[in-house]
C-alpha cells in the first residue's frame, strides 16, 4: 500500500500552496501580456520609420523621373528644331514678317539721320576718340613694359636696388 504525498499534507497547506502557485502563474501571464503589449506599442514607431523611408524613396524617384523627362523633352525639341522642315518654316516666316519690317525701319532710320545728322556725329566722334585713346594707351603700356624690363636688367647687371625719386614738374604757364 503506497502513500500519496499530496493527500498527506493538510488541506490548508495545499490551499496556501495553490494560492502561491496562482500568484506566480499570474505573474508569468502578466509578464507575457506586458511583453506583447510592448511589442504592440513599438509597432507604430517601426511602421512610421518604414513609412518615412518609403516616402523619401518615392520623392527621390519622382524627382529623378522629372529630370529624365525634362532632358528627353529638351533633346526632342532640339532635334525637332534642327530639322529641314522647321528651318524652312522659320525662313518663310522671317521672309514674310521680318524682312519688310527691317526694310521699313531702316528706311525711316536713314531718313532721320539725313535730317538730323548731329545725332550720329557725336556717337562717331566719341567712338573715334575712344579708338585713339585705346591706341595711345596700348603704345604707352607697351613702352612702360619695355622700360620695366630694361630697368630690371640693368639693375641686375649693375646690382642696384634704390629707386631715385623724380622731380615734381612745375605747373604749365597760363
Amino acid at each position, binding site marked *: 500500500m503506497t502513500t500519496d504525498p499530496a493527500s498527506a499534507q493538510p488541506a490548508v497547506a495545499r490551499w496556501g500552496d495553490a494560492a502561491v502557485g496562482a500568484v506566480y502563474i499570474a505573474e508569468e501571464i502578466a509578464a507575457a501580456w506586458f511583453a506583447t503589449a510592448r511589442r504592440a506599442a513599438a509597432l507604430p514607431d517601426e511602421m512610421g520609420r518604414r513609412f518615412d523611408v518609403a516616402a523619401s524613396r518615392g520623392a527621390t524617384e519622382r524627382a529623378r523621373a522629372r529630370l529624365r523627362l525634362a532632358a528627353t523633352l529638351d533633346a526632342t525639341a532640339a532635334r525637332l528644331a534642327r530639322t529641314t522642315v522647321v528651318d524652312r518654316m522659320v525662313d518663310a516666316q522671317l521672309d514674310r514678317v521680318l524682312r519688310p519690317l527691317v526694310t521699313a525701319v531702316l528706311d525711316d532710320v536713314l531718313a532721320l539721320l539725313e535730317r538730323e545728322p548731329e545725332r550720329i556725329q557725336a556717337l562717331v566722334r566719341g567712338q573715334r576718340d575712344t579708338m585713339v585713346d585705346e591706341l*595711345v594707351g596700348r603704345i*604707352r603700356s607697351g613702352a612702360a613694359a*619695355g*622700360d620695366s624690363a630694361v630697368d630690371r636688367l640693368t639693375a641686375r647687371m649693375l646690382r*642696384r636696388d634704390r629707386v631715385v625719386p*623724380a*622731380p615734381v614738374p*612745375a605747373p604749365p*604757364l597760363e
Partner: protein
Amino acid sequence: MTQRAATLPVGAQAGYAGPVSRSVAYLLDALLVSTLATGTAAVAGLVAEAIGPWARDLTHAFVAAYVVVLPLIFAIYLGSFWWLAGRTPGMAVLGMRVVTVRGDRVRWPAALIRALVLAYFPIGAVWALVDRRHQGLHDKLARTTVIHHR
C-alpha cells in the same frame, strides 16, 4: 640747392621716363620731321622746276645738303617744342615731359643745347640705359631729365 622730389605712387605713372619710351618718342618725332622735310623738298623741287634754272640749282644744292640740313631741322623742331611746351608730339603720345633736374620748365638755352647734341650726336643718348635718372649725354649737358607726366 635742394631738389623737389616727388613721392612715387605704387605702380607709378610718375618717375623718370625709361629708355624704351624715350626711344619710341624719338622715333615718332624723327619720322614726323623726315616725312615733312622730304615732302617739303619734293614740293620745292616741283616748284623750282616751274620757276626756272636758278631755282632748280638752288633746290638741288639744298637736297644735296639734306644729310647736314636734316639734323639742323630736327634740332630746331626739338628745341622749339621743348622750350614752348616742354614736350614734342612724340613725347606727348608717350606721356612724357622734359624738365630741369629741379623740376622747372626748360629755358631756351638748355633746350637748344639739348636739341643740338641729340640731333648731331644721338649716340650719347645710350647713356640713359645705365644712368639712375635715365639721363643721356644731352641731358647731362643741359641739366635736364625726362619724366612721365600725363
